[in-house]
């Protein structure tokens, strides 16, 4: 189980994943050797699985971000699997989430412009299998995006 030292290290690492272990140890007020040991344990126990680069799609010309909330035809037992498989083939889909609630699935779709989005929507999205209903939320701005956990 995690103790307070583990939590402190994770909290500081989360706020700046690129810092060196030396800086992390200092910020977390633990000796360097302890910090290394704790990080290793967090990794081997699978708590800390790694890290991924965050890409700003706008910087490479993808100005439009749309959240598509989708309900599926649940009378077909293969609906989820077949839908997700097909959605993976759409290059502009950056996230696929499934839910328990009013909607079954959500796709994040990026596009270069509204006309580009229109084209993706008509040719790639509307042809996805087993859709019963689809709703779009147009992304205006990101107010908070740290995804930091309250550890």
């Amino acid at each position, binding site marked *: 189980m*995690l103790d307070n030292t583990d939590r402190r290290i*994770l909290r500081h*690492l*989360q706020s700046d*994943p*690129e810092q060196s272990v030396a800086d992390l140890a200092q910020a977390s007020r633990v000796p360097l050797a302890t910090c290394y040991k704790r990080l290793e344990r967090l990794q081997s*126990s*699978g*708590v*800390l*699985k*790694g*890290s*991924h*680069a*965050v*890409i*700003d*799609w*706008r*910087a*490479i*010309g*993808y100005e439009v971000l749309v*959240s598509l*909330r989708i309900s599926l035809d649940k009378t077909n037992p293969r609906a989820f699997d077949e839908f*997700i498989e097909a959605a*993976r083939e759409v*290059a*502009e*889909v*950056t*996230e*696929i*989430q*499934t*839910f*328990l*609630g*009013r*909607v079954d699935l*959500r796709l994040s779709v*990026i596009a270069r412009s509204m006309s580009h989005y229109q084209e993706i929507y008509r040719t790639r999205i509307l042809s996805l299998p087993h859709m019963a209903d689809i*709703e*779009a*939320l*147009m*992304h*205006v*701005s*990101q*107010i*908070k*995006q*740290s*995804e*930091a*956990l*309250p*550890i």
Partner: protein
Amino acid sequence: MIDLDDLDRALLRALQGDATLKAAELGRRIGLSQPSTWRRMKRLGDAGVLVGRRLDLDLEKLGFGVTVFLGVKLATKGRVSLEDFERAVTAIPEVQTVEHVLGLYDYRLRVVARDLSDFERVLRRRVMTLPGVGNVEANVLLTEERRPGPLG
């Protein structure tokens, strides 16, 4: 905005999987020398394409059993400023992301909690008391998959 070639895209794809890769190892994977890989990484950083990294943490092991997405509709548009709502919602530790959206809802929140009763506490005490909050829809996250996007 900058244009990418195939090597840039391969480099970004690799870093999307593992942000800790160094220029030498990255270069080996995409068939470039260490210095030219480093130059490309620097260019992508300077152009604002690579904007940092995020930890991949096991939520279950950290005790966060549920993730819920909330669609929030503001009740009193015009009377409550968006800034007041945004400031208050950003300050809630359990709220991981806040997006301003157009459509059925005004805001989309990603919320983590220990379990469903903890989520209910966050919802009642923190979210429903936000200035101007109106209709709230909750969807519990079951699975999540991040895709590489148009880098193929």
